[in-house]
């Protein structure tokens, strides 16, 4: 059972454009929603995260939008750059000692010149 569904699977955006990746979750007990960025041959790196008490969080060119009633959240990358080309994973978990990240299936983003 895929508890966090992510789309699209791949995305091509021109330099300067906006990249949008969407995720939907099923478990209403989730209380932490991070996004990870992974470059080839590297481990996932925490990019930005949000908790359900806010609807939006912005860090530089990266913004998470969160819709609790729809159980959806999305990552927006403004002014996309070739250096942003990577695989992006959304995730969700329930904060606590016995916690685990449930990942989406990943979106491969390519930013073209």
């Amino acid at each position, binding site marked *: 059972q895929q508890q966090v569904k992510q789309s699209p699977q791949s995305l091509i955006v021109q330099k300067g454009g906006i990249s949008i990746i969407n995720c939907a979750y099923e478990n209403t007990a989730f209380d932490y929603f991070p996004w990870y960025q992974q470059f080839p041959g590297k481990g996932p790196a925490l990019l930005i*995260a949000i908790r359900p008490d806010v609807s939006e969080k912005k860090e530089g060119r990266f913004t998470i939008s969160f819709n609790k009633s729809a159980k959806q959240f999305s990552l927006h990358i403004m002014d996309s750059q070739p250096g942003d080309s990577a695989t992006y994973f959304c995730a969700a978990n329930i904060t606590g*000692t016995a*916690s685990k990240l449930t990942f989406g299936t990943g979106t491969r983003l390519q930013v073209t010149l």
Partner: protein
Amino acid sequence: DTAVSQTPKYLVTQMGNDKSIKCEQNLGHDTMYWYKQDSKKFLKIMFSYNNKELIINETVPNRFSPKSPDKAHLNLHINSLELGDSAVYFCASSPPGLAGSEQYFGPGTRLTVT
């Protein structure tokens, strides 16, 4: 000053062999994890330790045995390796307080079983 390190980075071995992957974190975190990333890049939790105590054990074959000698180290031993074990294995750690929230990943170990 690497935060989460893993050795080896690459591991090529034959079916039936036993191998170990080591992980160390110098972040002072209490909780450590092993994740498996398959060929389709799907990431799935395998184990989690908190202060050397096993707290998460997903439905992983018992050929996989994690060991945590102290809270800065979490090793993964795999017995009787199978072709399906080929994957990238990531170690991660998270700080106390917001346990399980901010997880920091190592560079991964690419295991190839032939």
